[in-house]
């Protein structure tokens, strides 16, 4: 067990210190996240739509597309100078590597999302009434589901001839239920009044996370090895 944890920690720490110095993934997530939000503002005039109509879709679209680019970046960096080969040559438990990658990707995503959220708060005039505990819970669960699927498919797409194009092609349909749940849940939280029906969406998100984290944990080794 301690061997498992030390591999997880090593992978996590390596990703974080490399990112701390280069900031490739974070830059990608933040820049594309912000650009998506701004594009949404151009497409849907906030003056003519209620906040809860635009913000959930806007936020999650931004997180999704920025996140996919970020994951692609992260996987491409791993492949540089045979980094993945180095990992493969070790007897390290593949599940432990998955957990390490999962955690580092989650940290990158949450950090990038926080920055994008700050701007969204200002641009859409969100305040304490909207940014409640359920709001952040949805954010966390949605992100974990995204990362659970993305950590596997970032590696898969690197091995396809289409590379970064393949990532959204594979991920978006599989993420459909997560996106639906995250957007609907966020809309409920942002709508003034009761949070009725929120529990169902949270349960769905948690279930999604669980199913795909377990699947990723079990299947990551196969993907890495080929």
């Amino acid at each position, binding site marked *: 067990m301690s061997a498992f944890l030390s591999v997880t920690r090593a992978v996590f720490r390596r990703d974080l210190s490399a990112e701390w110095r280069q900031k490739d993934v974070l830059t990608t997530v933040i820049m594309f996240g912000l650009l998506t939000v701004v594009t949404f503002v151009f497409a849907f005039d906030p003056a003519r739509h209620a906040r809860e109509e635009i913000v959930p879709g806007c936020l999650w679209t931004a997180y999704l597309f920025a996140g996919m680019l970020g994951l692609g970046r992260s996987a491409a960096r791993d492949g540089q100078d045979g980094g993945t080969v180095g990992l493969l040559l070790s007897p390290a438990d593949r599940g432990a590597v998955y957990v390490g990658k999962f955690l580092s990707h989650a940290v990158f995503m949450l950090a990038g999302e926080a920055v994008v959220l700050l701007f969204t708060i200002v641009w859409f005039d969100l305040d304490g009434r909207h940014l409640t505990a359920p709001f952040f819970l949805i954010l966390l669960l949605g992100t974990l589901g995204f990362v659970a699927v993305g950590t596997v*498919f970032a590696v*898969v797409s690197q091995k396809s001839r289409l590379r970064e194009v*393949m990532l959204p092609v594979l991920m978006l349909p599989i993420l459909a239920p997560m996106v*639906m749940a995250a957007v*609907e849940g966020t809309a409920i939280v942002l709508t003034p009044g009761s949070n009725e029906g929120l529990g169902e969406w949270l349960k*769905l998100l948690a279930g999604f996370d669980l199913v795909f984290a377990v*699947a990723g944990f079990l299947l990551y080794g*196969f993907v890495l090895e*080929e």
Partner: protein
Amino acid sequence: MRSTDRILLTLSAAAMLALCYLVFLYIPLEKTQGYIQKIFYIHVPCAWVGFVAFTVTAIMGGRYLATRDPDHDRWAAASAEIGIVFTTLVLITGPMWARPVWGIWWTWDIRLTSTLVLWLIYLAYLILRQTVAERDRRSVLAAVTGIIGWLGVPIVYLGNRVRASQHPAPVVGGGEDSGLAPIFLATLLVGVFSLTVFYIVLLRARVRGARLEDAIEELQIAEGRDHA
């Protein structure tokens, strides 16, 4: 064609003829929808076959990962291809029915969305197969995608149930859910039987073809190797 396939194909064709008889000559016309309702008896069996086909892809992917037997990968790939064909038929026949009955081509409700997502997932599966040149690698990546993709299906279904309970879809005329009379159910089952058997025939033929393609390639490669 082997005798098993001949028997299966005959069975399927006979059931299809029976289906045509039942649909066009025997069962009464549905009162509110008219003739267009009859598309239901091909639409639903296609959806069923699509789902079965993708399930087979996921299972065969799992077996490939466990055994590395290339034949399992052939079954998985063939089943996905056929599944895409049948699901495409579902996505075509659905709007054909919806337009006159609902007044719209498409609505984002439970079954439509999950069918569309399923179709997109396995389309991505086939694209992935096309873009990975090396065979072992392709088989493994496809197997993992086939399994993970399939896991999403029940969740889409659940998600749509939650959403549908909040925003009822604009369904005019209940159609499918409103409990079928025995003769309608029997007709539907004949359709399901016919297309399922037809799916098996196609699957077997496709896998045999893939085996031959691989065998020919092996021969060419072996020849090239000895002359090198």
